[in-house]
């Protein structure tokens, strides 16, 4: 038997494969992006937004947009693997299976961040206010990490079910709630102009949740993909 490919090499191969496929097809990010913009427009009409006076609302809308778009992306990214039998191919590869998990997670994370990076400036232009700040970017980085960590795990279960199109949000949203609460609270604080030290708790919580969710997903992923 040939020696196993190293963990990181395998992981980056999966990430690279997803990025190249996305670069050629542009299916996932374009869908997520259009969807995200639609969500913002719907919120605008539903809530009569004025972000200057309602910074707490802005944080909530940003996060709802991000997790809805992320949900779309997660579902699609695993469905593609499943439909064309690619998942079986990946699993047959003589590599550590958690490398596949981390590869998929990182790719999903990158997609979510790309979408967020486009949504933020558009939001700023639409409401004629600058919401972009290093602290907010850090919150989005941490929050979406926790989201994709557990999301990739649950998406790989959901695509194997008969009811897969409706299942992922139902499985994911109640479980991801702690990350969402901390992320929304931290973002709202940043948008209201609170100093970083006041928001330290939420940042700490986000980091702790990320670690917990990533490690538990890492531990159980093997049992999700085994046949």
């Amino acid at each position, binding site marked *: 038997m040939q020696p196993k490919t190293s963990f990181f090499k395998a992981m980056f191969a999966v990430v690279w494969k997803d990025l190249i496929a996305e670069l050629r097809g542009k299916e996932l990010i374009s869908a997520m992006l259009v969807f995200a913009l639609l969500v913002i427009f719907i919120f605008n009409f539903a809530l009569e937004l004025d972000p200057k006076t309602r910074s707490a609302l802005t944080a909530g809308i940003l996060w709802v947009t991000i997790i809805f778009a992320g949900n779309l992306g997660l579902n699609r990214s695993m469905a593609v693997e499943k439909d064309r039998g690619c998942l079986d191919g990946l699993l047959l590869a003589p590599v550590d299976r958690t490398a596949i998990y981390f590869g998929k997670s990182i790719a999903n994370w990158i997609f979510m961040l790309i979408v967020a990076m486009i949504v933020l400036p558009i939001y700023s232009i639409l409401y004629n206010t600058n919401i972009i700040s290093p602290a907010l970017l850090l919150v989005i980085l941490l929050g979406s990490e926790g989201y994709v960590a557990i999301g990739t795990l649950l998406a790989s279960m959901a695509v194997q079910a008969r009811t897969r199109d409706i299942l992922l949000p139902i499985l994911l949203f*109640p479980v991801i709630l702690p990350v969402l609460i901390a992320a929304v609270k931290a973002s709202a604080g940043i948008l209201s102009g609170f100093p970083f030290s006041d928001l330290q708790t939420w940042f700490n919580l986000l980091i702790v949740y990320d670690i917990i969710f990533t490690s538990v997903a890492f531990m159980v992923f093997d049992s999700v993909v085994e046949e």
Partner: protein
Amino acid sequence: MKKPTTLKILDVVTLVALLGATAMVFFYAPIERVMGAVQKVFYFHVAAGWVGMLSFLFAAIAGILYLVKKTKIWDLVGVAAVEIGIIFIFINIVTGSIWARPIWNTWWTWDPRLTTATIMELVYIAYLMLRQGIDDPERRSRFGAVYAIVGFLSVPLTFFSIRIFRTIHPVVIAGSDPSAVGTFDMTPTMFQTMMVSIVVFSILFIDLVWHRIRLGKLANQVEELKFNIQD
């Protein structure tokens, strides 16, 4: 598969104990001075919440054991615990609402405990929906086990996140937050009634889990028999 005699005895014991606990709530425990008769909801409210939490803990442990040992029995225990937990947490939420209406003047508030209990309910309803969507029994058990573990882990984190805001839910046992509305000091008879309720509900839980596991085994047998006939 005949119903075991121990289970029959347990059924009777559970029934008698449940009647006894109800009698204690109505006749033994005194009427609380400020809140009046509605406070009596408290005993079964706490007991149902206790059994609900216990069930989900069982489900998570059964999930871990299933993933390690891959024996069918742990899957049956897991489903049994989740189904029963959903019912008891539902009882817990409803009795809480009945009490909250006169005391807090609202059926519902976004308090950490209330919110967490309801999110927990949604997590385990999602668990049942996940299982329903998968046809292959082995995969269904595996995914159920994974989700029971992830869900159980997430619930305390949710509680903790919301807890950072202030709460108005009374902490009757070991705690006296002055901002809580509807708190009271328990008399010895109240405390005894509560402990009896918790014990009785735990017995009820064991009885129900046993029945549900037996039902699961029978369902598996039926499935096997059907499969054999098709061959």
